[in-house]
């Protein structure tokens, strides 16, 4: 009998990380199309946020916050164009360049909306972003999104009112930045 333990499980997890974005079960129209769309969304999200895809959307991910951001962003009419740009681009970096500097404001500002969603857990619609600053978000995407905002991690902190850290953490220095956001420039 082959005994699986968490130790060899972890190596299995690493092996499946490459296909992580296709592990999501999404509703119709077609699971394969939906999986590809999610993969493209994570690829683009990683490129425009600067966070590794496997850090942004781990292979074993009980939170699945990407589903909420995908669902929110896909309500925008320009969303399919962002995915097409990502699919056709020679690299994720090229896709990010084409989206963020796109002459079409519908695409450019949707890219910004997605960045802000990942970092703040809030949805700033492209229309809102095109208004005169300062702007307020249209909505907090969800309670879970609030806890998952990457801005807290970049600041080596935790959201106000929410922490998984152990009692007394406030008396010690936070872990190094790498621990929060993985590899970074």
């Amino acid at each position, binding site marked *: *009998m*082959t*005994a*699986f*333990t*968490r*130790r*060899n*499980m972890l190596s*299995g*997890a690493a*092996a*499946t990380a490459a*296909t992580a974005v*296709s*592990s999501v*079960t999404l509703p119709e129209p077609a699971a394969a199309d939906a999986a590809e769309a999610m993969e493209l969304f994570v690829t683009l999200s990683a490129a425009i946020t600067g966070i590794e895809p496997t850090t942004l959307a*781990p*292979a*074993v*991910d*009980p*939170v*699945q916050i990407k589903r909420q951001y995908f669902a929110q962003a896909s309500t925008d009419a320009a969303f399919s164009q962002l995915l097409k740009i990502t699919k056709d681009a020679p690299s994720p970096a090229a896709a990010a360049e084409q989206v963020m500097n796109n002459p079409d404001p519908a695409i450019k500002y949707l890219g910004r909306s997605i960045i802000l969603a990942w970092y703040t857990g809030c949805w700033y619609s492209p229309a809102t972003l095109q208004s005169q600053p300062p702007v307020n978000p249209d909505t907090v995407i969800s*309670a*879970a999104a*609030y*806890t998952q905002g990457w801005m807290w*991690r970049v600041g080596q902190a935790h959201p106000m*009112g*929410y922490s*998984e*850290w*152990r*009692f*007394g953490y406030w008396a010690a220095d936070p*872990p190094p930045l790498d*621990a*929060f956001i993985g590899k970074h420039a």
Partner: protein
Amino acid sequence: MRGSRSLAIGILGMCWLVGFTGFSADAQTRRDINPPLATCDLTPDTIADPKDPSKRIAQPVTPALLTSGQPCEEVVSTDGLLPNDPLGNLQRGFDFYSWLTFIAVSSPADGKTIGQGPRPGGDALTEWESLKNYRPLADVMLPGGAKPTWGTRIVPNACKKLDGPGKTVMQVSEEAWNQPFKTGPLIDQSGHYALFDILMNEPMFEFILDNELYSVAGQRQFSHEIVFPEGINPDQSKKPPDAGRMGAVMLKTSWRVLDPVKDKGLIAKFHTADTLIYFPGPPRTAAGPICVEKTLGLVGIHIGHKTAGSPQWVWSTFEQIDNAPDESSVAPGPSSPRHNFFNAACKDCPVNETPPQPWDPPASLQFRSDFRSQVVRKKDLPQEVVDEVTDLNRQFRAILKGTVWENYELITTQWPSDAKNPIDPTGVPAPTYLANTTLETYSQGTTPLASSSCMACHGNATTQHIPATASDFTYILEKAQ
């Protein structure tokens, strides 16, 4: 790798013990608090497909699993029945582990197979009700911080005249009737309080004993990190294999009062215990000192198990199948099924609301007004998990058919999806939320911090050291006197 790691832990553990207890000849001969076991159940939830060994098929759920033993550690894999779903495959593995654990600890204390006890439905005094295997919290955290002893049955004077063979003793404190964070008692449809009890296995007890954590004074002198012994599977790559160890296990049980006459038709659906319920009197209870005898029916059980793979512990929770309907399937009407904590005929009863004060139970355990808890199970689990557990429950309940144990179901298992996450000491729990309708009735849901999550909650548990220190995911140490 595992062998060297275990050895390193063993050496460190010895140095650590020597360091703070003072080395002596006694220490050299002290028995291993987490002894090696030859009986760890290593059954995985999937096996290689004989037709195509590159594929996995489901482990057949057969009566052989009723005697396969207790897992010392989870046996899980990212590969499994679900293609490209490592999370789902791991969840199923943990849920399979939970059922094996539930069957093992609920088997008769006399060694018989589960469901083959002498009572109706094959019921019997279980492994976890035997003082050979588990000890109630009240018998560990003694008045005045007295030193507890393993295996000694404590019967309060007020209960002695009611005592007899096969009876269990439950000491009432606030934790026996009030839910976590003092959110209130749970009142069944007969108007009785639900009762809760906490137990621990011998490795957990011995760790507390060895380190004098059974008293406030002992905890205040303990300046090291609390690390309970972990369960670990045998390393079969070694020759001879390294033995497995069970590690710390703690249980929390929930019970409803059953009337042997009025509830005669229901009793066969419950594991029951003839229990002497001791109210010690003020300040711990409003009633007492007094002892009452009740037949209690098990309505819920949490099993927390610390393992090498899950240092945040593995959290399994089971319920009696008639506790409460799902929020989405509530169908008020006289023909709806009977529930322990829900009245389908009451259309206006607010759901999941705490009873009116005062809450202290009288010795009758009958609530003072006509309030009855109207409990529904809120949807706090991903649908994929619900579907997977429903299928597993069907299979395991089938092999328990004809016994009282077919009337219990796994809700699911919470486990650390990233146990070594450097910024989340709770190990990114999967699923994020988990509640038992009898034990976390009022904190069901999906609100961060407010809704029930075994690991997120227990990650906040501390000792009574000054300043307080983390207590390795147990609130048991807070009960020391």
